[in-house]
């Protein structure tokens, strides 16, 4: 795997860069669709597409800058489908200038939200992040399947056998390369699928011959005619901008969670400094889009899927991809070539990506202990997320401001998950005392109590196991020092960052030496064994705090575990 700071050799780097760039080109269908919907002239369309490529490049470059500017991670920005309905509406009202002004409002909203993100941490426990990632996979699903089967609309009843053949071949190539190829071939599995599928698609006539003729007539290089600072601002669009910025931030954080999990196998919770930087990078892309009249951009979950699929998260890929995007903006023929990738090939790659994301999200929802409340949060959020897919016509009956929200199953499931998380926090205390009728020396009883509280708080299973074992060891050490069970009081305190086990006891102070006592001294007497136990306790916690009352008899031992 190529980690964040690794530098892949030139060959793999070139292939990875091409894959990321080609995937951006796939999403250029959205600005094309907007341009067609609002009736832009061919020259304006070219400028709009080139400006969007610049916005993607700038956002991708800022994304890879270290915090506090960007996230410091590879993350590619693309034209996001979630913006499309609103932008068509805005573009039909005031053309590209109003879209440009709207992009600036989006950027301003995102910059404000980026500042608030760390305070929003309680809204994003791992199960919410898991729901968001599953939502990302589900959101890609319908488009992916339409492309895969050759359906033109979601209600299409026919399946194009040629489409299905090419898509199946592409998917089989990717899966085959992933499962059976070793070394570098596995790294470029998606690229292999892309090439095999594209060759099959072109040879089977899936690319129209007039498109190939048009390609011949395009110049290799051409200066894009960008519309600099041609923007108009309509303040009445601000609420929509804020709502879409919030949705973009949730999307962004979902993709960030994916990236953070990929680069850190021991990932526990979202890094909000990186998250803030990531949203700022998104804002930088939108500022650029506003400046030169392109389409607003967002962090691409498909590229996160590509990073998972290729097992490559090297930062160096970002500037290379950005450079290629800028070059592409000056190369009409190249843009055309990449836009000619057959639909079923794109569909197969999207199905592959969706599958990755859904499984990754499922794993994440299971990474912490789930109480009944949290199970409802996950389950209900996913059901609500299916609404736009299962009942698309409901959108028409909603107010305009909610239509964009209903457009995205991801946003629906994410907002439901966040809402239920906040609602279900009501009435949960963040501390609990071991009931007096429970014997702390009875490990099973202790374990049941810790697990029950862990489920309620949504703690990580591993963390609860560590805390239970360390507490069990400490209680044994107390016993070795002659401290009676009745003289021990155990309290748990939990927040999103730490779990504290507070043991108050009466008797001689438990020594927890930093230095390991000789193992053979365990046979000497109970005091020596208690020292070994104390050392084990110290080594099993993230921080150990001890304090004593002035009477010298009452003490407090705090075992702190980082979440």
């Amino acid at each position: 795997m190529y980690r964040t700071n690794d530098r892949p050799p030139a060959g793999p780097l070139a292939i990875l860069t091409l894959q990321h760039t080609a995937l951006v080109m796939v999403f250029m269908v959205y600005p094309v669709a907007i341009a067609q919907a609002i009736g832009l002239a061919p020259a304006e369309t070219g400028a709009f597409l080139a400006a969007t490529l610049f916005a993607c490049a700038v956002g991708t470059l800022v994304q890879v800058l270290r915090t506090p500017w960007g996230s410091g991670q590879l993350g590619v920005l693309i034209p996001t489908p979630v913006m499309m309905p609103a932008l068509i509406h805005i573009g039909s009202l005031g053309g590209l200038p109003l879209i440009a002004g709207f992009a600036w409002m989006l950027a301003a909203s995102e910059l404000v939200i980026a500042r608030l993100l760390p305070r929003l941490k309680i809204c994003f426990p791992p199960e919410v992040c898991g729901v968001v990632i599953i939502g990302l996979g589900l959101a890609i699903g319908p488009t992916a399947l339409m492309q895969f089967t050759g359906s033109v609309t979601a209600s299409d009843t026919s399946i194009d056998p040629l489409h299905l053949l090419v898509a199946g071949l592409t998917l089989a190539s990717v899966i085959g390369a992933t499962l059976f190829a070793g070394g570098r071939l596995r790294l470029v599995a998606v690229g292999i699928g892309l090439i095999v599928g594209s060759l099959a698609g072109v040879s089977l006539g899936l690319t129209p011959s007039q498109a190939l003729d048009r390609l011949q007539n395009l110049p290799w290089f051409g200066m894009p005619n960008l519309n600099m600072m041609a923007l108009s601002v309509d303040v009445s669009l601000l609420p929509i901008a804020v709502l879409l910025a919030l949705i973009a931030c949730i999307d962004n954080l979902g993709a960030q969670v994916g990236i953070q999990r990929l680069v850190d196998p021991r990932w526990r919770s979202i890094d909000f400094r990186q998250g803030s930087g990531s949203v700022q990078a998104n804002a930088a892309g939108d500022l650029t889009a506003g400046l030169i009249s392109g389409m607003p951009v967002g962090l691409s979950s498909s590229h996160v899927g590509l990073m998972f699929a290729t097992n490559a998260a090297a930062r160096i890929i970002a500037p290379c991809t950005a450079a290629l995007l800028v070059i592409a903006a000056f190369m009409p023929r190249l843009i055309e070539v990449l836009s000619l990738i057959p639909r079923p090939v794109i569909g197969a790659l999207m199905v592959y990506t969706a599958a990755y994301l859904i499984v990754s999200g499922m794993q994440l929802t299971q990474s912490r202990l789930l109480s009944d409340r949290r199970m409802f949060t996950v389950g209900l959020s996913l059901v609500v997320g299916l609404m736009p897919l299962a009942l698309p016509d409901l959108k028409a009956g909603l107010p305009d401001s909610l239509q964009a929200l209903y457009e995205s199953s991801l946003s629906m499931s994410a907002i439901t998950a966040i809402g239920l998380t906040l609602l279900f926090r009501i009435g949960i205390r963040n501390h609990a005392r071991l009931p007096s009728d429970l014997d702390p020396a009875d490990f099973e009883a202790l374990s049941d109590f810790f697990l029950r509280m862990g489920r309620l708080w949504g703690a990580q299973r591993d963390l609860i196991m560590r805390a239970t074992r360390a507490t069990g060891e400490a209680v044994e050490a107390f016993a070795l020092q002659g401290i009676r069970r009745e003289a021990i009081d155990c309290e748990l305190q939990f927040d999103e960052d730490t779990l504290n086990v507070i043991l108050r006891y009466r008797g001689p102070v438990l020594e927890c030496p930093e230095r390991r006592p000789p193992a053979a001294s365990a046979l000497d007497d109970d005091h020596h064994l208690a020292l070994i136990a104390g050392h084990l306790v110290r080594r099993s916690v993230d921080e150990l705090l001890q304090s004593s009352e002035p009477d010298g008899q009452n003490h407090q031992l705090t075992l702190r575990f980082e979440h």
Partner: protein
Amino acid sequence: MDVLHSRVGSVHLIQLRGRLDALSVERLSAELMPLTELPSHRIVVALGELQSITSIGLRLMLRVARESRLRGGGFVLCELQGFVLEVFETSGFLDILPIEPGRDEAIERMSAPRSGG
């Protein structure tokens, strides 16, 4: 904690399941200590299914190893993994107790002539 006692040739194989702590140590001690009194005894304790062990459990292992050595027998631990291995490493018991990675190696070591622990 479950204690499963079986024989592989002349070797006493003790498999532990669950948690070895102050509550279960007496039971295991009652199983193991009499074995150390048998002449030329050979004991393998497999910890593959042991979920956790505390300092009191470690002391029992050390005591059995010492008794076995003093009486000319053989004693070896095997299949240490996960949290149990971590406790042995952290406490330093990994360095002073006879340990084999797998059960087969442990039984082979105990079955070999003049083997000791």
